[in-house]
């Protein structure tokens, strides 16, 4: 019979109960904690942290104005003569009526005082803004494909205030581009894959690179 004289603490007969390490369960527990914390924060805390909330400079009421115009969205978001799209209207579209305050809303008062009176353009935050590498033709989609505005932009026309602009802190783009869902479930984004998916469905192909990246 041999005795281990150099490891006095090791009791080969008893197992691990006298060992100085943590138990396997404890180790596993820490793993589990780490796992759960990361999963939960990844899915819930991360999206909130990633985006900063910004308000539009003026809380514009689309519904109110839509009632007053005759051509729907196109009354202010129109095509120019050369076919380019005017996008968000400039101050010149507003001043016809708003040289003075028309209603009782304090938002309008701010608008007239700070912007109209100083002939300063309102720095609107554009939800659908794409990077400079993207060439998007409204004419091709609205006139060519007969799409309506709501399909891509949602039902903004009936809203009474402008939704918060959630800005990605890293890229500077709106949350609307990735899509509201962090896992892009629901396909309400405006990334290339979203365009490609619709193209595939409507035209049979995702499209060629140079169509959008000139």
């Amino acid at each position: 019979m041999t005795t281990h004289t150099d490891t006095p603490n090791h009791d080969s007969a008893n197992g691990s109960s006298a060992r100085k390490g943590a138990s396997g369960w404890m180790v596993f527990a820490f793993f589990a904690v780490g796992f759960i914390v990361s999963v939960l924060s990844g899915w819930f805390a991360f999206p909130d942290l990633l985006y900063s909330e910004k308000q539009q400079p003026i809380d514009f009421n689309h519904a109110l104005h839509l009632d007053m115009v005759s051509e729907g969205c196109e009354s202010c978001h129109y095509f120019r003569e050369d076919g380019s799209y005017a996008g968000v209207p400039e101050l010149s579209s507003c001043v016809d009526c708003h040289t003075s305050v028309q209603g009782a809303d304090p938002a309008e008062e701010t608008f007239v005082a700070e912007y109209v009176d100083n002939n300063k353009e309102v720095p609107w935050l554009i939800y659908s803004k794409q990077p400079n590498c993207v060439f998007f033709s409204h004419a091709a989609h609205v006139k060519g494909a007969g799409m309506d505005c709501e399909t891509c932009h949602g039902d903004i026309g009936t809203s009474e205030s402008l939704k918060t602009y959630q800005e990605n802190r890293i890229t500077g783009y709106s949350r609307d581009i990735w899509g509201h869902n962090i896992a892009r479930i629901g396909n309400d984004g405006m990334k290339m894959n979203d365009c490609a998916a619709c193209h595939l469905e409507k035209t049979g192909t995702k499209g060629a690179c140079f169509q959008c990246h000139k």
Partner: protein
Amino acid sequence: MKIDRRCFLTLGAGLAVGTTLTPVPWKLMDDVSIWTQNWSWTPVPEKGAESFKNSVCALCPGGCGITAKLVKDRVIKIEGREDYPVNKGSICPLGLSGAQYLYGPSRIKSPMKRVGERGSGRFEPIGWDEALGAVSTKLAELRTKGKPHSVACISDSDRGTVPYLVDRFLLAYGSANFIRTPSFLDTHELALYLTQGRQGAIGFDLENANFILSFGCGLLDGPGASGRNFQLVSHLDRHHQLVQVEPRLSDTAAKATKWLAARPGTEGALALGIAHVIVRNRMYNIDFMENFSFGFEDWTDEAGTPHMGFKTLVQDYTPSKVAGITGLPPEEIERLARAFARAKRPVAISGLGRGPVAGNIDETLAVHALNALVGNINQPGGMMVIPEPDFMNWSEMQIDQTASMGRQQSRIDEAGTEKFPNTRYLIHRIPEIINNTKGESPIQALLITDANPLYTVENTAATLKAFQKIPFIVSFSTFMDESARYADIILPNHHFLERYQDVPMPEGSAQRIIGLCQPVIEPLYDTRHIGDSILAIAQSFDGSISTAFPWKDYETFLKETFSENWETLSENGYWADPRTPAPWQEAFQSPSGKYEFYPTARNNRSGADTDALPGYRQVPISGDEKTFPLVMLPYNSIRLVSGAIANSPFMMKTVDADVLRDGISFVQINPATAKTFNLKEGDFAVLQTPRGEANVRINLYDGIMPGLVAMPRGLGHTAYNEFIADKGANVNALLDTVLDPSSGLNTGWGIRASLRKV
């Protein structure tokens, strides 16, 4: 319960594994990759309404029509205008950069008054009233002292309403000193006057010619409507040939059908040699020679004195003699002469694109003679006389006693005097004259409109010294160029994209049109149209001067000048002269009523026929052969602007690394020359001429004759902006003028030089 290191490790592992099951890594990767592409420093045009506005580029005398593309009110691109006759949609790199000049850092943003030492660049912005007042006061002072003739104006152009207003002011004020900076126009105008008795410009109908014999014209190296020249040279074939005569393989020579490397300065001899062959073989246009020319045959004048004719003159210029002068083989000269004379529509051209040099009047006369010999004057494909427009009627004016006395004083540059009777402008004489005058400078006040003499006039050191002696200098420049930087008062003109101006007689073009430079945006800064400034100064005087300027503002004057043609001019952006080229019966207004091969109006002090006729005389260039064994030749490139305006930042990007590198100009020498002087490619050297020296680097080039050193024009600016300033050396600082004794014009095509390695 024991917690140890393993727990924390597994905690980390759990975090890691869990994270991969969340969107975090994938979203972050996507976001970071987008972030790396956010280049906020890259300028991108704003989105907005686009518009296109027509105008005419005024950056060079070429006069190309342009279309400016704007987004909202910002010019984002300049393109050649498709439907403009001069350039037909093409444009050169300089014109393309027009917007860079508009928004760039060289702009002078308001009137300026010098507060530091001259040339220090220290200015204080002042108001227009103060600035104009300062100029009016000084000019009034000089007038009261009885010295109105001590006021001079330097301008790159003497055509059009703006130079006219300046000249009119000088007339009413009492000075004859309107000085136009040199260009090939000097010799061509003189040749036109001497041979045809007409005032006007020379145009070459290159588009309709089928054989272009170019005596050193850098068609692809910069002049006129460069785009038009490019289109031309791009379509050469067996039926449309270009023969380029020059000592260096320029871009033009490289694209030409044939390149003949004649020794520099001998082009006139070659022209006479070609004339010799044409005359000997009777290959000239018989109708033209018999009925419309004078002085071809020997002739006798009214006093009974016999005179030599052109025919006799060229007898001497046999191909073998000319071969000895030019270095070209005699068979080549024969062949060239026969090809030229036999071509259906041959044209000989000279001058264009040699930079701001007047050139050799004898050479020009000889080249004109070649065109006369083949009978292409005012014919399709030939040399066209472009007369001044005939409808510009400016009101008569009365001048007062002071003005009359002032006008009677001879010009400071002595042009038009007995010494140089046929010449109009001799700017290069001025530095010498001022520097040699003891006491007060003959120019007491200098106005600089649309010119940059401190950069462009040869022998920069002497020019600077002369300017130091001028007590009052006013610049109307839009940009802080070398001359503006040296001025006492700056009255900045609008940029051409911000103003109206007529652009008459596009350089070298056979098109008889006047273009209209139109504003495409509102002026960005507190600048004022030079026409308005001149009107304001004129109207500040009492009496005859202000009476001579009744117009409310420049625009009114411009519209009145064009009267019923204004509508066409402003709608089309140009006005085409309905007069067609004069037929030979009506074309010549010389004393004989014909084309004068023997120019009887030529200043001929010696009385010798050989001095009146355009014989070849070797023009001695400065420097002795021993000290300066090489000959330096300036050269032009389409990538380097050589005149008053400096290269744009865009254009700087197109300059090769063997032309300019790390702020040093390269000079081109033949490998044989390099060997003689123990120089290798890329070596640092000092190029020295009798006028100065420059640090350069060596570029070995087979396309240049041994014994020559070619140096690019357009570098060595010391003002403007950081993109061009202090890069390379100014070739004008190393050059000298070489005066043709009869005309006084600068024939200097080069100077002797030495190269030593450092």
